[in-house]
């Protein structure tokens, strides 16, 4: 078998069905082999960054590993932003890059780039394959590393001579990595200790993040929260990990979190963090984060524990397994004690309800201008929440997080850690590939959408009925908001002098273009977009200077929120 054939066989053994990529000289033999293969489906994107975000969106929406194949040099370097995006949000993807022949590595050969060196700090692991015989093992390891423990991107660099060489190989059934043994089962003693502390608390808060989504712990965690009636807040990455319409749900916390969630954290006496990492956008001024609280922290990555805040009960383990164990242990707690706990914490829940009532998420409604929040609310209403929402980065992302209630895990897909503009649209394409029957909407800004707009061609070519809702303020809105609030409205380079006509642009690509300029058009336009079984780009011309509130200024304490 040639290296190219071995490569495809190894992918199939990992259950791969779809590959996102763009060919080139260094991988032309693989593409030739792919041409003869009827089992693997290749999606040709228009930019390698688009391919990686698409594979990432595929992974986030399905839990399966996303796969990318690109050529050497520029093909490889174009993947870097996508890889870093996946790395920051722990998304399992495997990126295969072509490379110049091993004999030429280091010679500045045509289209040579040291992609293993370049991506070392933004991959969970990476490989340069030097011998065709290593290919089956390396590919198996790459997938295993990508999807286990704290998931993440893995890159495999494939020199051309390795791809063209032939060898008799055996595909391994299992692999042994002596330096990689993720701890999945939480320490039982620690879990018991956590439960004791929880039952002794009076003002508990469950603070859950992306780890709950990745480990499929949402259902068990919801059960646990409801059994004890513990109020829940999600990080941006954690949205969908707890039903957004549940009365225990307080919304997102952090910089653009709800008043109730930020106040609850500030006054809590026990934070139970599950699969969240106390990111600076969540904690605000870290010294003043949850000043009265003890902290229980469940995370599969030991390095996330006690990184920025001191933790009282650390539990290293997979979120789902730990929460299941907590539920088991809870069975041994007398009903009486549980009732006493619920009674003791009733006052706390009442306090939280008051916060929710006095300061709900809100905006100034308008009859003449389209408010972006209104668009998101309407989309929620018209889909009943049954959709996968991806976002770009900026205000659009925050409004999408605030005004849509996510009820299921893997339905909210956003670049949280790296904050990559241009992520949402290709991610939506990947999500649509993984979920053919689902409504997939990218909530976008006019700035971000221009960063990967070329993927409209991909959506049209593969008949992926992805919707793009541009909340068009003709600004780099979130940056403008900061300039508005903290730089005396000096809008340095945030106002676009020129924007394309998005409707005609969509049509030029063969997609459907729609526009709404008045609030009374919004509902109909959304209905129309959802009705069309084709890619649709909708240009919502919104109130230009709308800001995202609440807002905790960078570096301020969570309790110091700017409100509407």
């Amino acid at each position, binding site marked *: 078998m040639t290296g190219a054939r071995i490569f495809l066989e190894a992918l199939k053994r990992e259950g791969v069905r779809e590959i996102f990529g763009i060919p080139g000289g260094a991988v032309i033999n693989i593409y030739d082999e792919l041409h003869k293969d009827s089992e693997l489906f290749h999606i040709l994107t228009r930019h390698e960054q688009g391919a990686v975000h698409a594979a990432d969106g595929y992974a986030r929406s399905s839990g399966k590993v996303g796969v990318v194949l690109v050529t050497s040099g520029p093909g490889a370097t174009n993947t870097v932003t996508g890889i870093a995006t996946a790395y920051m949000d722990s998304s399992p993807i495997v990126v295969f890059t072509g490379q110049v022949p091993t004999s030429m590595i280091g010679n500045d050969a045509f289209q040579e780039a040291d992609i293993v060196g370049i991506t070392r700090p933004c991959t*969970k692991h990476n490989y340069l394959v030097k011998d065709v015989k290593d290919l089956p093992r390396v590919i198996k390891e790459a997938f295993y590393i990508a999807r286990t423990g704290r998931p993440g991107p893995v890159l495999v660099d494939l020199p051309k001579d390795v791809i063209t060489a032939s060898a008799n190989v055996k595909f391994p059934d299992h692999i042994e990595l*002596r330096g990689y043994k993720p701890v999945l089962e939480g320490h039982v003693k620690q879990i018991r200790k956590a439960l004791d502390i929880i039952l002794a608390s009076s003002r508990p808060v469950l603070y859950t993040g992306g780890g709950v989504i990745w480990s499929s712990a949402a259902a068990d965690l919801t059960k646990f929260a409801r059994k004890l009636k513990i109020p829940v807040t999600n990080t941006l990455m954690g949205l969908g990990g707890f039903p957004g319409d549940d009365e225990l749900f307080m919304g997102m916390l952090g910089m653009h979190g709800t008043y109730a969630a930020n106040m609850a954290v500030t006054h809590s006496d026990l934070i139970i963090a599950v699969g969240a990492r106390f990111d600076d956008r969540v904690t605000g001024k870290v010294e003043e984060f949850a000043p009265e609280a003890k902290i229980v922290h469940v995370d599969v990555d*030991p*390095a996330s524990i*006690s990184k920025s805040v001191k933790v009282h009960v650390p539990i290293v383990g997979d979120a789902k397994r730990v929460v299941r164990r907590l539920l088991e242990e809870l069975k041994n707690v007398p009903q009486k004690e549980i009732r006493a706990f619920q009674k003791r914490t009733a006052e706390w829940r009442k306090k939280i309800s008051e916060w929710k009532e006095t300061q709900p998420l809100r905006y100034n409604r308008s009859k003449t201008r389209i408010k972006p929040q209104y668009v998101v609310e309407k989309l929620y209403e018209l889909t009943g929440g049954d959709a996968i929402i991806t976002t770009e980065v900026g205000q659009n992302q925050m409004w999408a997080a605030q005004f849509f209630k996510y009820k299921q895990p893997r339905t909210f897909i956003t670049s949280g850690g790296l904050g990559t503009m241009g992520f949402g649209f290709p991610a939506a394409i990947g999500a649509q590939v993984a979920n053919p029957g689902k409504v997939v909407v990218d909530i976008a800004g006019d700035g971000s959408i221009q960063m990967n707009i070329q993927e409209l061609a991909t959506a049209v070519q593969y008949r992926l009925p992805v919707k793009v809702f541009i909340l068009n303020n003709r600004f780099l809105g979130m940056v403008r908001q900061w300039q508005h609030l903290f730089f005396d409205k000096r809008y340095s380079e945030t106002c676009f002098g020129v924007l394309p006509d998005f409707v005609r642009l969509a049509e030029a690509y063969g997609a459907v273009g729609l526009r709404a300029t008045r609030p009374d058009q919004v509902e109909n336009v959304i209905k129309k977009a959802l009705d069309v079984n084709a890619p649709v780009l909708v240009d919502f011309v919104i109130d230009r200077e709308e800001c995202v509130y609440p807002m905790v200024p960078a570096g301020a304490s969570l309790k110091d929120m700017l409100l509407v």
Partner: protein
Amino acid sequence: MVRRHTISLLVENRFGVLARVAGLFSGRGYNIESLCVAETTDPTVSKMTIVTSGDDQIIEQIIKQLRKLIDVIKVTDLTTTEHVERELVLVKVNAAPEHRAEILRTVDIFRAKIVDVSPSAYVVEITGDEGKIGAFIELMKPFGIRDIARTGKVAMARTAKKREQEGTRHVA
């Protein structure tokens, strides 16, 4: 409180591993005071000794981040256990005729060795722990140190068994 730590790593003996470890330190802003690496008796495994400094939280992060690297098999913070450390240093010191006797005496006291002699300088080889090496260098300074080359520290945990430990202590 910022303290110096000696961390010992067992790593896969593969190309790129050193870059991964060094990159982790530079990427996260940790400093490396010295780093030594060489094969062990198992040719697939290398041993690294890294001297770094930081407060408890930073050291904890360094160790956890090192453990996350797929090619890192084992990480031990030797600072918290009984261990021996040694460094080898070559010192080229001015050897004016009137100073030679004193230099030779000091070399003798420190059980160092003269490994090269020229009309105007000696090259001295000395092995020892941090304290011994520091003291020796201080004593050489007045004569004029022309050049110095240090291997960086290597270190090893002492054997836990009591009797054995006593036996090895003096040899070291």
